[in-house]
């Protein structure tokens, strides 16, 4: 019934509790069952090795054992294809801790490619998630989707054509997203309702929007803060928005570099941005009604400094954008901030002066309250130089899986 073989050497040592096994798996007609059985029977320390080849899978896979490595022979060699998927919401679901996923591709899942929930010390390394038909509203929402998790490392990977965000980290803490390529997604990278994230060295291009940092109400974890976005290349994000209406990213205008919404203490520095036709950096409040007492819909404590911002804002696709660009000499400045200093919670108006620091040309819309119509804006150039302390670098635990395999890249600053 099972076609995996346990490495002979490990088998001899099977009686020893510390003997780690490797499950070697090769493509076959029974790949679904073979891989899933290995993912169930693996024990902490074991490796599930997916040899090169294409695996045709028709149901989701899941891993619920701590300390397991799932290793392929490279993201162009080991391909898990879910083109014929008839069950489950995602390609691979991880619900355990200390897991390393490396060296394989997930293609054409009906929902998300890889979801992880409630995981601690999870590393996505050298992976690819792709919808091979290109941008399409019927594609899955997310490529890599850790949620309600801690100590997340996503590196050296590629995500193509998600109908929501290529890399989406939600309701999580202590996050590093580095050296990834994300393209043709609605959002390249999105950090949402999360705390302590470093997003650096990524290449985000031909998405609708490059990198988003959001906070939404009514979720178990609200109050996202402390994200650093640096050393990224965010260019030519020109794909028309193909998200399903109703999703928050459906409101992202085509041609956006970086967007901060309703989040606090976000530092954007040393990035290169070019060819983002709506705006390079957009900083806004949450625009919809809410009653969540815990929630603050204003963007606040945002720093934009030392970026290289080339041509941008020349063809804004958001409501009122064209008129605004015309009023400002033909283009949206490098930074566009809604400038709101008050918000509504239910029927109550709450005033709060948001602090900002920009070293690039910036326009404030001076909205009376967050979410007010852009048509009612009273735009003015903004000179914001608040002193806002930068969050400390995110430190992952020493035993973060995959950390020792590759030396951590030197941080430029």
């Amino acid at each position, binding site marked *: 019934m099972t076609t995996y073989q346990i490495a002979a050497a490990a088998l001899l040592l099977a009686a020893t509790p510390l003997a780690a096994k490797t499950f070697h798996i090769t493509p076959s007609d029974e790949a679904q*069952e073979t891989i*899933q*059985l290995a*993912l*169930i*029977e693996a024990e902490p320390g074991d490796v599930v090795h997916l040899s090169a080849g294409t695996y045709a899978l028709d*149901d989701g896979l*899941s*891993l*619920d054992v701590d300390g397991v490595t799932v290793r392929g022979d490279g993201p162009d060699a080991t391909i898990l294809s879910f083109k014929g*998927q*008839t*069950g*489950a*919401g995602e390609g691979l*679901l991880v*619900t355990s801790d200390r897991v390393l996923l490396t060296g394989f591709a997930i293609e054409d*899942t*009906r*929902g*998300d490619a890889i979801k992880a*929930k*409630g995981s601690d010390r999870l590393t996505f390394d050298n992976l690819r998630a792709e919808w091979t038909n290109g941008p399409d*509203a*019927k*594609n*899955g*929402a*997310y490529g890599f*989707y850790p*949620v*309600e998790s801690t100590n997340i490392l996503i590196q050296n990977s590629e995500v193509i054509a998600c*109908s*929501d965000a290529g890399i*989406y980290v*939600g*309701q999580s803490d202590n996050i590093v997203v580095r050296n990834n390529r994300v393209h043709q997604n609605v959002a390249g990278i999105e950090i949402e309702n999360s705390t302590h994230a470093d997003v650096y060295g990524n290449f985000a291009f031909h998405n609708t929007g490059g990198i988003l940092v959001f906070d*939404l*109400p*009514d*979720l*178990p974890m609200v109050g996202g803060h402390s994200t650093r976005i640096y050393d990224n290349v965010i260019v030519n994000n020109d794909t028309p928005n193909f*998200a*399903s*209406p*109703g*999703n*928050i990213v459906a409101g992202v205008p085509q041609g956006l570099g970086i967007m901060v919404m309703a989040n606090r203490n976000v530092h954007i520095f040393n990035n290169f941005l070019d060819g983002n036709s709506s705006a390079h950096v957009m900083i806004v409040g949450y625009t*919809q*009604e*809410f*009653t*969540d007492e815990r929630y603050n819909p204003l963007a606040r404590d945002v720093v934009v400094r030392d970026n290289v911002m080339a041509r941008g804002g020349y063809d804004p696709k958001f409501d009122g954008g064209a008129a605004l660009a015309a009023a400002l000499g033909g283009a949206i400045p490098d930074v566009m901030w809604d400038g709101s200093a008050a918000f509504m919670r239910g029927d109550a108006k709450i005033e709060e002066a948001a602090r900002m620091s920009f070293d690039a040309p910036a326009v404030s819309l001076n909205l009376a309250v967050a979410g007010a119509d852009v048509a009612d804006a009273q735009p003015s150039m903004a000179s914001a130089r608040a002193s806002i302390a930068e969050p400390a670098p995110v430190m992952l635990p020493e035993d973060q899986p995959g950390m020792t395999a590759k030396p951590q890249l030197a941080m430029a600053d």
Partner: protein
Amino acid sequence: MTSRRIIFIAGSAIYLTSAAPSPRVDDAALMADAPAKDFAEYGLFLDAAMSKPAPRVVKYGLNTPLFSDHADKARYIYVPDGTALSYDGEGLLAFPVGSAMVKHFGFTRADGSLDMIETRLLVKKADGWAAYPYVWDAGDTAAALKKVGAKVQVAGRDDAGAPIALDWRVPNVNQCKGCHAVDGELMPIGPKARNLNGMFEGETNLSRLASLGMLTGVPADVPAMPSWDDETASIEGRARAYLDVNCGHCHNPAGPASNSGMFLTWETPEGANLGINKGPVAAGRGSGGRRVGIAPGKPDHSILLFRMESTEPGVMMPELARTQRHDRGVELVRQWIAGIE
């Protein structure tokens, strides 16, 4: 050796049993680290068809059951000798270590017997619950452990009596946890006091278990959740019961869908966390272009109904254990949403 046992129950009835030897559940097999390969090894039933339960294995029913592609189910609770379930509020009963729950899935034949597909076992071990799926062979002669799940072609009838055929998915042990997880720990879903508090085969489940000495601490008035198809109950109560049972095991603050912020349990007050006028978070194309989970008065603007109506992976809800649309359930929830002001 012939043994004769006298069992006193609740001081009111005396049963005399004569057996050689008296059948009993194999507690050691249930508690073993490795599950039995053949379901029969547990001794939970007296017959090969697994329809005659062993002593202390009690059949029960739920006021509102989970929809499982129109399959029929038979459910049993086992509590070892010398232990008992205890009442712990209107939610889940408290189970002693050593307890087990059995659920047969199949389609009822013309003679009333169950054409078996699979049998799921939940066992409460010292370190928590474990779940094991067993798949029946074609002749219903044995059920074999299938940790990795299975896909089985089955045929039966839907609740309107029309023939249906489908690829039945037996969940793998991880998928068991896809529904049965509370804060990441495996837990039973069905045996909540409010859902057990109804008539089943001539008696209420709670009084049957209590009179057998298998349940203690039941107060005089236990809340009851309505049966989803009881037309004498309110639409709201029936719909909320349906959502609790079919959605609330994931959509609760400690469940697998906690991150959605949409909680469909019986206890959830009407408001944003029930999905009312709440935007989606990670629905992707599952939103169907609709903007909120529940749009009051507007079922066709509600993502909830869109996902209940779908049978497409990545869109449909629940994500697991459903390939068919449940028309009567959809209609009930539609009526409820239409009536919300």
